[in-house]
């Protein structure tokens, strides 16, 4: 099919193209308590085609993208490609070129054992220590082997395979006839049994604590500690500021060689792009547009050092040799997690949802479980919310030397934000 699409695109006279063939072979398991409720398997091949059309003698380059299923007939493929070419001819993007650099020698395609990874997830979840009052309500396991082949009209070709998994689970905790639940979802490459077991058992303990929680009191501003996967939102915002798309659209005003804030009084973060992180679902040598991923600093000691992002915007802002960032490592914390957990603070471990708006930096989240440390005492709290803005928070932000991994992000285990508004319930 890929060769047919390529041949047809050349016949149709498109000016450039990218084709990505993706084969997903996956197993899915749906458990209620520990009883298998449903299971599914899939073997799916799809082609994503981007067609480019030069407009007004190369002043503009139009692009249109569509998906072709493996079972499509030649007539269906022909029609879709013609439609894409027409659509591309209507899009007046300033001209840019596709990747054309030869890629390093391909290594042997990695073998992904879906059966073993699935078995690891299932045995890990079956081995979780539960009690009469805290247990797993349900969990869903998705394990995929992804095989991808990328080609473009400049002769760039890349072929890789990798595992991609997802675990969603719900824990229940009950006391005196009252039951609550906590929800978690995490993406992974393969299954890291130990870290998943630790994470689930920590969530069970949070469930027990939530049953004892009292309403969050009205608080003056306190340092807010984040020590769960929600902290990735904070660091995603920082990575986003280094994206050429945000630079081009003037969403980010960060500049290479300059501090990321005019008053960086807390820790000075370093953010690196990595090709490989153990058990990440983003271990690629080459990005989805055919650019080799160079390991590099985006930010070093609080100074912007580099950018990441797509080819189109890279060229618009005058950057060659760029790539999309998948795996990142954030370091630079000056204190240990224990040192950050001192004095008065609130450590929030469960939000209904925690968001950092990528455009304006607004922070918002409803507190479902937090530990309020005040005057040497600890109060378990629930309810209310936190709100603030990253542009202010980054100035006094501190984070731990210890790191923890959430899929593609290796970030400080504890992040401390100051100056957030905490809305209590009473």
């Amino acid at each position, binding site marked *: 099919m890929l060769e047919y699409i390529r041949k047809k695109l050349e016949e149709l006279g498109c000016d450039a193209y990218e084709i990505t063939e993706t084969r997903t072979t996956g197993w*899915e398991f*749906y458990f*209620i308590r520990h009883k298998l409720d*449903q299971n*599914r398997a*899939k073997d*799916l091949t799809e082609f994503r085609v981007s067609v480019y059309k030069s407009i007004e003698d190369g002043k503009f380059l139009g692009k249109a993208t569509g998906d072709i299923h493996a079972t499509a007939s030649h007539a269906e493929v022909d029609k879709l490609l013609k439609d894409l070419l027409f659509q591309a001819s209507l899009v007046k993007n300033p001209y840019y070129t596709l990747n054309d650099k030869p890629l390093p020698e391909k290594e042997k395609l990695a073998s992904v054992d879906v059966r073993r990874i699935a078995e690891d997830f299932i045995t890990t979840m079956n081995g979780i220590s539960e009690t009469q009052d805290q247990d797993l*309500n*349900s969990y869903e396991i998705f394990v995929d082997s992804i095989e991808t082949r990328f080609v473009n009209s400049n002769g760039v070709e890349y072929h890789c395979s990798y595992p991609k998994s*997802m675990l*969603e689970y*719900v824990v*229940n905790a009950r006391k005196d006839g009252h*039951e*609550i*639940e906590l*929800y978690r*979802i995490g993406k992974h490459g393969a299954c890291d049994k130990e870290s998943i077991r630790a994470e689930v058992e920590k969530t069970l303990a949070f469930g027990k604590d939530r049953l004892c929680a009292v309403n969050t009191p*009205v608080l003056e501003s306190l340092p807010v500690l984040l020590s769960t996967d929600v902290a990735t939102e904070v660091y995603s915002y920082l990575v986003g500021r280094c994206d050429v798309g945000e630079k081009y659209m003037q969403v980010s005003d960060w500049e290479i060689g300059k501090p990321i804030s005019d008053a960086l009084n807390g820790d000075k973060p370093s953010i690196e792009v990595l090709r490989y992180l153990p058990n990440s679902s983003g271990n690629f040598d080459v990005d989805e547009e055919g650019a080799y991923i160079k390991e590099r600093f985006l930010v070093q000691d609080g100074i912007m050092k580099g950018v990441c992002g797509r080819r189109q915007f890279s060229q618009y802002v005058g950057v060659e040799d760029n790539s999309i960032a998948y795996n990142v490592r954030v370091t630079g914390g000056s204190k240990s997690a224990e040192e950050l957990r001192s004095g008065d603070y609130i450590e929030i471990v469960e939000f*209904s*949802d925690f*968001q950092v*708006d990528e455009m304006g930096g*607004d922070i*918002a*989240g*409803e507190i*479902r479980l937090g530990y309020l440390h005040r005057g040497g005492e600890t109060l378990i709290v629930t*309810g*209310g*919310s*936190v*709100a603030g803005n990253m542009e202010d928070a980054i100035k006094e932000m501190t984070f731990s030397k210890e790191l923890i991994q959430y899929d593609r992000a290796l970030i400080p285990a504890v992040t401390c934000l100051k100056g957030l*508004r*905490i*809305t*209590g*319930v009473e």
Partner: protein
Amino acid sequence: MLRPEILENLRVELKKLPKMMEDTLASGKIEPGEYEVITGPEVTGLIAHEAFGHGVEMDMFVKGRALGAEYIGKRVGSDLVTMHEGALCDDSVTAYVFDDEGVLAGDTVEIENGILRTGICDSLSALRLGTQPTGNGKRENFSHKVYTRMTNTVFDSGEDTFEDMLASVSYGYLLDGMESGMEDPKHWGIQCIIARGYEIRDGKLTGKVVSPVVMTGYVPDLLGNITMASKDRCIFGNGGCGKGHKEWVKVADGGPYLKTKARLG
């Protein structure tokens, strides 16, 4: 001339955007606390979706994940609260004739005058629960599993005018524009992140704007405190909704202006 649905109201809607942008740019921060609020139709829809949309998806009943199962036939809101859910409720992006399992689309009255009547159901969950599917079996795409999912979720209109509702507020906010929301079917907590709050004092808009606004609370309190509902209503639907944080499908929601009390931060 027949135009794509998305273009129908584009000219009208685009004209509103600069004002919204100006309001947001000029906005301040809200003083956290409990306020009288009037929810605009978009925020009303968000409440419908998060409060009793997810809470009565009956595959959650099968897993014992929804408090709603214990409240069928019981009061969950004031007399002014009647809520419909179904692909037949509106000709929005999520309107269809039959669901992804071939079950004919429905129009389910979930809450009637404040009493929770029933939930919505896919075929497998209906089989497990010994009930009938409601035409709410949806999948993200052909390669995904069917779950019980929402379609149009909408509060019924009331008898009040917006002007009377505004005049009745001594100190509070008119809440407009939704950012996002999150459900808690087991505990009936609700979180709505709202784009803008317009201050109301002594029955009049003062011109002061706050942004963003995080509205939190306990669903039966929020719905139980509804004392007024406007005569008109709107349904919004071009976004996606996840089951937890996955399985994205198109949904729509809406309703009239509602007056209630809520905790804002």
